[in-house]
């Protein structure tokens, strides 16, 4: 029994289950909801399986069909991958429970297969050991995500989806060109092999430029964020949650992988990391100020995503001197943002469902009428603001520590300003939630599961604040940042 458990190819299940599940959903649309929930739950269990194996044996490696690299497809997971898989599974569970109540019969038949395909693409991406597979998963992910955005129908959603489609395709194209250059120059697409072969040649620089640009566009870093707010704000709430929490993190994850492994010989020069840090800082400030200026809740949350992505990029200029601390900070911020932002979009969905609008100034007495949703928004907000106790606080603490340790006062100032601005836009929403006003519109009851899904995700983001030691020691598996385990 124990052997079966430890030998079982859980990693393959992570891709196969949602892929097959999605196809069955297409064939049998009336059972979409049940199938979807069962599949997502099974995927979450498989992540536990992978984690179990990795605690036992370290890095997870599986040659699909028995063919190893460079011919076949290798599945590869270290601590970094595991963490992203776990985040997807957790957010996926929450969003699925929410969606089961959110989507009616007709929308549901379209939502579930798309979401399962998206999940398959995400898992495959996090498990990819070569850059061409990553391209394939990008395409699958992009198409599923765009279709999900368009699900809401209407002019806004279609416009947003269209912009999103263009950005995603353009990003993938640049990335593909980079792959072609690398393959031409170094004769392989396997990340581990490339890591050995790539040198600081013009080909490598060109590839870095192209792939970097493509990934930055997909991650929506300032000033390439133009597509994100309309897409994330006009999509149905659970879709917004998935996009903000997971999809933008996927391209960040690939950028990080390439940076740490493939392009390591080029990283020695400060120019690129300085540029990335600068973009990140601009994103933090610009995104936060824009969020503060919005009068609609979902747009506010979408701009907040732009800002929060900016924090992740502050790690690049800091990592040279601070090493793992800066990466841990980025990772922790990514993880807690995934949970908190998903919770926030789901909470916004509840408010929209309840009141029929998402004007911030009209959110009167939400605290009395949807207390769980208000609590979810507030708790998620605590993490987004980086206040203790929350995962966001741990991430911010580590990042500040990295920046102060090398006296990067500019980045420190950006982080502090970003936190203050975040507090301003979060409490702009919460302030209205306490006001007294007459009820002027018909309200629709919100199903309990939708309220709890948002609240539990938000609680997860808060709970992360107490789990730093075990989480960071998991990340150490396979030494993705050149150090094992956790060190002070």
């Amino acid at each position, binding site marked *: 029994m124990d052997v079966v458990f430890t030998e079982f190819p859980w990693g393959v299940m992570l891709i196969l289950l949602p892929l097959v599940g999605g196809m069955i959903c297409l064939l049998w649309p009336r059972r979409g909801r049940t199938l979807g929930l069962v599949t997502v739950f099974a995927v979450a269990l498989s992540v536990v399986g992978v984690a179990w194996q990795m605690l036992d044996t370290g890095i997870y490696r599986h040659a699909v069909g028995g063919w190893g690299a460079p011919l076949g497809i290798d599945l590869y997971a270290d601590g970094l991958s595991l963490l992203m898989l776990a985040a997807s599974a957790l957010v996926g569970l929450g969003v699925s429970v929410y969606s089961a109540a959110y989507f009616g019969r007709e929308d549901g038949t379209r939502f579930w297969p798309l979401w399962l395909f998206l999940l398959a693409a995400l898992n495959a991406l996090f498990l990819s050991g070569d850059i061409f597979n990553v391209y394939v998963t990008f395409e699958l992910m992009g198409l599923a995500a765009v279709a999900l955005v368009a699900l809401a129908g209407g002019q806004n959603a279609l416009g947003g989806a269209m912009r999103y489609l263009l950005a995603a395709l353009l990003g993938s194209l640049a990335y593909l060109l980079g792959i072609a250059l690398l393959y031409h120059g170094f004769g392989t697409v396997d990340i581990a092999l490339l890591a050995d072969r790539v040198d600081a040649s013009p080909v490598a620089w060109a590839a870095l430029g192209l792939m970097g640009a493509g990934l930055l566009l997909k991650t929506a870093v300032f000033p390439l964020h133009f597509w994100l707010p309309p897409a994330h704000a006009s999509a149905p709430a659970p879709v917004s949650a998935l996009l903000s929490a997971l999809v933008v993190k996927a391209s960040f994850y690939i950028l990080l992988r390439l940076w740490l492994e493939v392009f390591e010989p080029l990283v020695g020069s400060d120019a690129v990391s300085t540029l990335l840090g600068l973009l990140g800082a601009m994103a933090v400030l610009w995104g936060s100020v824009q969020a503060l200026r919005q009068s609609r809740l979902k747009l506010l949350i979408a701009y907040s995503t732009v800002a929060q992505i900016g924090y992740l990029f502050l790690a690049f200029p800091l990592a040279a001197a601070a090493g793992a601390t800066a990466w841990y900070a980025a990772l922790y911020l990514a993880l807690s943002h995934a949970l908190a932002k998903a919770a926030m979009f789901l909470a916004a969905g509840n408010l929209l469902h309840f009141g029929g609008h998402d004007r911030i100034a009209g959110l009167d*007495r939400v*605290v*009395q009428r949807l*207390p769980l949703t208000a*609590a979810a928004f*507030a708790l998620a907000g*605590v993490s987004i*603001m980086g*206040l*203790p*106790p929350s995962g966001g*606080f*741990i991430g*911010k*603490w*580590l990042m*500040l*520590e990295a920046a*102060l*340790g090398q006296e990067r006062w500019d980045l*420190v100032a950006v982080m*502090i300003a970003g*936190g*203050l601005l975040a*507090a301003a836009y979060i*409490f702009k929403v*919460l*302030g*209205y939630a*306490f*006001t*007294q006003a007459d009820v002027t519109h018909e309200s629709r009851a919100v199903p309990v599961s939708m309220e709890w899904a948002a609240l539990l995700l938000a609680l997860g983001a808060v709970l992360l604040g*107490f789990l*730093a*030691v075990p989480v*960071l020691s998991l990340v150490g598996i396979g030494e993705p940042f050149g150090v094992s385990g*956790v*060190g*002070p």
Partner: protein
Amino acid sequence: MNWNSWLPLLVILSSLLPGLIIFGLAEKRVRLRIMLNLLGAVAKIGLVGWMLWGVYNGIHYEMRLALLPGLELVLRAGPLSLFFVTLSALLWLVTTAYAIGYLEESPNRSRFFGFFSLCVTATVGVALSGNLITFLLFYELLTLATYPLVVHRGTEAARHAGRTYLTYTVFGGALLLLGTVWLYTLTGTLEFAPQGGFLDGLGDEHRPALVIIFALLIAGFGVKAALVPFHGWLPQAMVAPAPVSALLHAVAVVKAGAFGIVRVVYDVFGVEFAAGLGVLGPLAWLAAVTIIYGSLRALFQDDLKRRLAFSTVSQVSYIALGVAIAGPIATIGGVVHLVHQGLMKITLFFCAGNLAETLGIHKVSEMNGVGRRMPWTMAAFTIGAFGMIGAPPVAGFVTKWYLGLGALEAGQAWVVLVLAGSSLLNAAYFLPILHRAWFREPSGVWPEERDFGRKETAWMLLLPPLLTAAMALAAGLLVMLPFSPLEWAKLISAREFYQP
């Protein structure tokens, strides 16, 4: 892990758990809510009493939990921690009873009492924190838990006050975070170290950085302690219901800030190290300016609660002053004022709340002859006011006596002038109130009178101020008994600050 290490956590849970359960209670479950509230408060007092006895006999209570690699959450009950915890626990019970009476029949009581319990939880956490990051955690939690209490009424004015409160406190929190992380990158530890702080090993090249860090930390705590120029939120927060004001001014927010200053000076920098940096002089001056400025502003307020608020601005800085004078005797005066100010100020706010609830009186100018209509309430008010002025035998006198002695001992005679000036000003804004209340004729009808039959007001509103006034009186009269605030402050000074 033995039983003793769980006690600090239990003290925190004794208000956290009831609070969380209360959030989930339906509005009409009045009895269950009251029972939970009182159960938590009584349990907390019991646990605290037990720890007081233990600490007196030298037992160590400590709980550790890994937070980050190299950093732990530490809850520790030393003499200073317990001093603040005891104050919080006692006044929480009294204020809860008062709030139950005050909020009878008003909406959203589950929400109110839930956040009320969270607020006390955060305060007790602040008190028990054994290192700076734990302190930071509970300090921010306190900001968040208090906000819903300030905006509780949901009016436009409340929303505005809430926004002001947040602007100040979140900004202060950011400064505090910055100072804390910076300190950590220099020292690699944040553990509070009684008897001299943990910075001794740092060389002279770090002096400029340390001065800035000191300023950041003091500014971060100064926001909540309402040091000038960070005091602007406090008078505005008056729109909150009376029990909230009482808690804010006497126990929770303002005190957490003052307590933070004590911690920074004694357990982070160490008093000698801080004196060597030359940062204590400016702190003493800032405190002195705040004391005089708060009193001057209080003179000109007609709104009773606003006058009391400016009085708080002034009085809380006695604590910072005592700490900054940096001598054993002045320190005793500053630390003991944590409790003394709490007892006196909470009495005054309870009384102000009673006047507003019973007669609709909000302004000083409406108080003519109110002593005849509500003699018990005004008697309690009088004791509190005399305490603030510093008249013996109320507790405030003890504070001023020790502060003055300590200043002379430390060779800083100017402080005595500040104290005398402040006492004069205190008298100038409290005595007219007392004169109006006791010696002027009532002007006829009260603004908004509620009928309580033969009683002057509901007993749930009357008992708490009488109790706290009695405690303030006892703290002044029975100073020499063991376990009096003064004796305990001496114990703190001897055990934690100055080696005998």
